[in-house]
Each structure stands twice: as structure tokens, then as C-alpha cells.
């Protein structure tokens, strides 16, 4: 499924990030989540986990799904975090700010493991150190 990615704060994401709890299970449970509407969730086959993939298909991140009436069809939301930023468009349109809102992404069902923030940085960014 093609979708537009929206990222942003949630109160518990803020509470955990500001409280220095980025390496806790609570943070992963709060942020490694893809919000979508029931219609899109059904069209994907009601998966427990999805892979959100960047437009150029270079980067992908596995997330749990959350069905909510807050979203419209064709739009997904990930709380702002290291997981969301894996698939945020890095182009800044000569402003310095990447496209945290409205990045085009692909969303597909997956069985991949959901990485913690620490695993993500070591495996994806540090080459598995």
C-alpha cells in the first residue's frame, strides 16, 4: 500500500524520551508503531506487524500496527522517533529540514522482528557492532 507518512509527538513518547528511557521496552512499544485507519488495516490483511518502506525502497522498518479513527485512508502515522526517521525523506528542499510530514512510503505486512532503539542504531547504522 502506498501512503503518506506523518510523524509527530505523542505525550508518552515525550515522557519516555525526556526521561532518558529510550532504551526501554516501553519506548519501543510506544514508538515502534504504525497508526492507520481500519480500512487500510483491512486492505493489508489485518497484519500484526507491517514494514514501512521508504519511497526509494532503500530503507525499511518493522512496526506493530495500531488501528485508530484519528487517521484517514492513505495516511499513516509513526510517533517521532528513530523508527520513524528511518523512512523519512532526507531531502530538505534547501531548507535543512527533512520531510517529517507527508513523506511518501510503502506499507506492507511483515514478519520481521521489531528492533529496539539500541538494536536499530547498532545493526542498521553502525553495521552490526
Amino acid at each position: 500500500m502506498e501512503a503518506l507518512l506523518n510523524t509527530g509527538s505523542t505525550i508518552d513518547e515525550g515522557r519516555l524520551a525526556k526521561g532518558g528511557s529510550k532504551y526501554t521496552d516501553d519506548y519501543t512499544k510506544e514508538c515502534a508503531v504504525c497508526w492507520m485507519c481500519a480500512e487500510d488495516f483491512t486492505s493489508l490483511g489485518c497484519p500484526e506487524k507491517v514494514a514501512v518502506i521508504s519511497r526509494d525502497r532503500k530503507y525499511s522498518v518493522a512496526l506493530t500496527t495500531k488501528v485508530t479513527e484519528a487517521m484517514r485512508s492513505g495516511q499513516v502515522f509513526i510517533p517521532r522517533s528513530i523508527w520513524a526517521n528511518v523512512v523519512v525523506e532526507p531531502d530538505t528542499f534547501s531548507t535543512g529540514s527533512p520531510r517529517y510530514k507527508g513523506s511518501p512510503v510503502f506499507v506492507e505486512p511483515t514478519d520481521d522482528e521489531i528492533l529496539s532503539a539500541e538494536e536499530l542504531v547498532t545493526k542498521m547504522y553502525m553495521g552490526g557492532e
Partner: protein
Amino acid sequence: MVYKNIICPVCGGSCDDVQVNLDKKNGTIDVQNACKMGNAKFQEVVSHHRILKPTIRENGKVKDVSWDEALEMAADILVNSKKPFFFLGSETSCEAQEVGLHIAEYLGGLADSNATICHGPTVMGIQESGMVGATAGQAKNRADMIVYWGVNALESMPRHMSRYGVFPRGYWTKRGRFDRTMVTVDPRVTPTAAASDLHVQLNPNSDYELLSAMFTILNGKEPHPSVEEITGVPISVMKQTVEMMKESNFVAIYVGLGVSSSYGKHRNIEIALNFVKEMNNYTKCNIGALRGHCNVAGFNQLASYLYGYPFGLDFTKGYPRYNPGETTCVDLLREKDVDAAFVMSADLMDHIPAESAQYLADIPMICLDIAPCPSTTAAEVVLPGVIDAMECDGTFYRLDNVPVYFEPFTDSPFSETKSNEDTLKQLFAKVKAKKEA
């Protein structure tokens, strides 16, 4: 002991009414008046995961070292770099940021801050159009209509609505919420949108088109019908919103990353600012950015005052240059244009897209922070941070660019440093000694 009127160092709201009861003996802290985020940050003073010892990475292994060794290694990395990059984060004072800027200038490097990945495009929009602004107090006392555009205030600045925006009783808004109309413009049904009188649920990436149409309506013309399909908002709702604004005595608009970070970027802000100027022909109207990071406005003020540009400063030619898209953090890292990084009081690794983050992990990085996070994991050198407004004094700039001086209620836990400013001064001394040797 109980301490009153403590400044909260979490978001741009800079709440100044926090009450703290610190029990040093039992290692507990009780916090009142702070929001969930604020309370969590205050708990860091006594947390078990606080970074208390400097570390370095040697042959892939992380080991504890003395402050002097860590500062030596940090200075070596910076001095040996051809193009060092300084990310002077916003969760610290202007005083610490100032020292960081001076080191960047001295070494001919580049310096940036959270503004670049936050309201950088907003600042660029202001450079294009100028801004009709007001302090948060003006909005509190006068505004009878509040518009949150592209921002979920309840979750990104939880006390904004209760301190400045919607609920407080102001001089001309004595009944608080009952004297105010609240409108939210957001593609998502956020808690802020749910609490609003009117939620304008636009399509993502259509802020510019919606603002253009409202501008057209404000000028007495009919927008093209295609704007309904593009924005997902009926023209009748646009007209209703414009009418509500015109009929209000004072409109306060707060913009968030929904405007500045979506397609259109600083042009969205530019047209919003022009719309506000035009609206002042009918009523009093101002606009401000809801700045999520603590002292992010401070860096803009400081860098503008010292070097003439608000963020994305390039000192490589010996004088300050500013070219967003070239001299800004995400672009520099994406283009692999720097060869070492100093990251202070911001988890940069967490906040930037994968391509930039991968390169940041590849180059030698020095990280000054208070708790373990992706940036400290990838850093070569980790320097423990001192918590501003709790353990040292200094200056923040609030979301409306009002400077706020803060005083601590406890001391730095380190005998080697009193504040992040102090740590940076020690680092600068070592850098100078090595450079001039």
C-alpha cells in the same frame, strides 16, 4: 527541601512555576505543576541510568575514562578534523551554545542546532515575509480566537493550552475557555483537534493551497473549486474560518511542524505570514511558532546576534556563511560533507533520516548528554551532561523569544564541571592548546 518557581527545561514553553521537593538523602524528587514530559526530565536528577562517567570507544569497546582523558580525545578528534561539525542542541543554555559557536568559528567548522530539524523553515519564512508576532502573555490576555495550525499542542507542549493559549483567564478574556474560540488545522484527529470548536481536517501537504484559498477569500474573491479536492476542505468551511477570524478581536495563530515540515516548507510559512499581515486590516492577528525543543529559539537568537544568521552556520571560509540545504545538519551528513561531529544536549542520531544517521555513525563523534541514547551509543567519546535549570544557571529563550534566566535547585553531580558551558570552555582550552602547539 522544597524549591518554588523552577523553570522547566523541556520544551519551548519554559514553564516557570514548577515546584520541586528534592530529598537528596533518599534520592527522590517530587515535582508539582510540571507536565508528564517535565516530570520525567526532573526525575533525571536522581535516575539510575544517568551518565556519570566519561567514556571512549577503543577498538570497538566502550570504556570509562577520566574527564581529562575524555576531553583530550575529544580535542584530538576536533583538531585533526578538516571540517568539524557542531550540533549545539537545545536542551542546554545559550551560554553553553555560545562557547560551542566560538569553537566552531575557531576551527573553521560548521554549527547548527535543533532549529534546523524543527522550525528552520519557519525562520526562513520569517526572513522572507517578516512576522506579526506577540508574546505569549499578549495572546493570553487578549486573544479570543486561537488557531493551532499543524501542531498537536496537547502532546508536544502539553501546558501551552492551559498557560497561554486556551484556558487561562486573561485581562480581556476573563472567562478563560468560554471567551475563546479554538480552531485546529490538522490532517489527523489529534487530542488537540478533538478539544477544538472547529477542526479543519486538510489533506497532508496541502497547507499552501489551503492558505492561498483563505487568502483569496479574505480578499473578497472566490477560490478555484479544485482547491476542495486538493485540500479536502470544503470552501464553505474555509469561508467560515476566515469569517470567524475577522469577527474576533484578537487572533493568535500557532504553527507547528505540520506547516513547516510538509511539502512547501518555508513557502507555507511565508504565505501564512502574509495572510496574517492582511488579516490585520480587519482585526488584530499574530502568529508564532510552537517550538518543541527547550532552548531552540535561543540558538536562533544567539547565532543571529553573534554571526548574523539564525542556524546552519558555515565558518569554513573564515567568515560566517548561511545556505540552508548546503550548510545545514541533515544535508551536510547526507552529502558526507563533514568528517567529525560534536553533538551536545540533543539526541541527533534519533532525529535525522537514515542516510544522514548512517554517516553520523561512520565519522568520529563526540556526544555530551545526560542519558544513554542512540547518539551516545554511536559516539567515540561521551561526556556526561549537566542538567540546565536544575544543576546550573543560565538563559533559555521561550517559544515567543522572551529570554528566561534560570537558577538551579541543586549542584552539578560532577566535581570536574559546573555546567555544560564549563565543560565546553575546558574543551575549548584544550583545542586551542593543541592547535597552537
